[in-house]
């Protein structure tokens, strides 16, 4: 057990941490730059959807009545699940950087389980809403609801596929040096998916 206290500011170990003050542009690894470019394009996708939702909602006062039928408790539980999965993903990256294979396997496994739980809860929620007649064609609000949460769920599914692949590689102890970078990139994507939900939850369920 290490006696050092490791903070978010000093995760250390393994991959060289970037330093905005001393490193030049070339210090950014190409893979990290690539995933941030990808995430920037994803901001446009979800940002455009969210902007459309906000404007349409402002234009149609009747949406408030429709929005009251969503299950905010289920949404809150799912938010907690996804926030926790971000914690386990971050801890997985720290384990990867420290070369702790067993801990990486454990934390990646927990992240996968939490992601699967999120999708399972979402599917249950969809079934409740569809059973009450709130299908994607039930109104503009429900169209937006299923589009935004469905697109987000697809992203969670993609993240699950990547994390599962990394979990298998980590469990077999293969590709260890490269795996650290891959866990970092998968983590960036996973946290982004979490950030998207952080905005979707209050917009759809609370406001």
């Amino acid at each position: 057990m290490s006696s050092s206290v490791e903070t978010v500011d000093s995760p250390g170990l393994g991959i060289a941490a970037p330093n905005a003050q001393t490193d030049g542009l070339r210090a950014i690894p190409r893979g990290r730059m690539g995933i941030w470019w990808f995430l920037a394009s994803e901001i446009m996708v979800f940002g455009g959807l969210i902007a459309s939702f906000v404007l349409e909602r402002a234009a149609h006062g009747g949406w408030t009545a429709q929005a009251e039928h969503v299950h905010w408790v289920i949404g809150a539980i799912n938010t907690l699940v996804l926030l926790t999965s971000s914690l386990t993903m971050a801890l997985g990256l720290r384990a990867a950087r420290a070369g702790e294979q067993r801990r990486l396997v454990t934390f990646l496994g927990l992240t996968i389980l939490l992601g699967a739980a999120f999708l399972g809860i979402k599917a249950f929620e969809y079934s409740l809403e569809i059973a009450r007649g709130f299908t994607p064609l039930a109104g503009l609000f429900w169209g937006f609801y299923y589009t935004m949460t469905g697109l987000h769920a697809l992203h969670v599914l993609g993240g699950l596929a990547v994390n599962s692949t990394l979990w298998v590689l980590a469990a077999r102890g293969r590709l260890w040096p490269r795996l650290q970078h891959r866990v970092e990139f998968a983590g960036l994507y996973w946290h982004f998916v979490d950030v998207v939900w952080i905005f979707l939850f209050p917009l759809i369920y609370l406001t």
Partner: protein
Amino acid sequence: MASPLEEVSGRGLTYFGVWEWLVALLVLGLAVFVLPISRTAAALLVLGFALVKAGLVVRNYMHLKREHLLLYFLVAVPVTLVLILLVALVPDIAQHH
């Protein structure tokens, strides 16, 4: 081996500490709707909490605060474009409704 539950003595947040803040903000966001304030004020408060939560995740879990300035621009440009889209469409929405 570092524990996720390790406490930090005034030098920054642990990953677990960030998670605690995220959960606290989630609970606060739910609690504002029982406060005797208008629905609009509550909605603005909740969206404010969402901004703080997103900032916590991006800066601490995605480590953006230790990244090169260029990556900040990469994030800022699409966010700005989305805001421009939002503002640019407001007159159109107002005219039709």
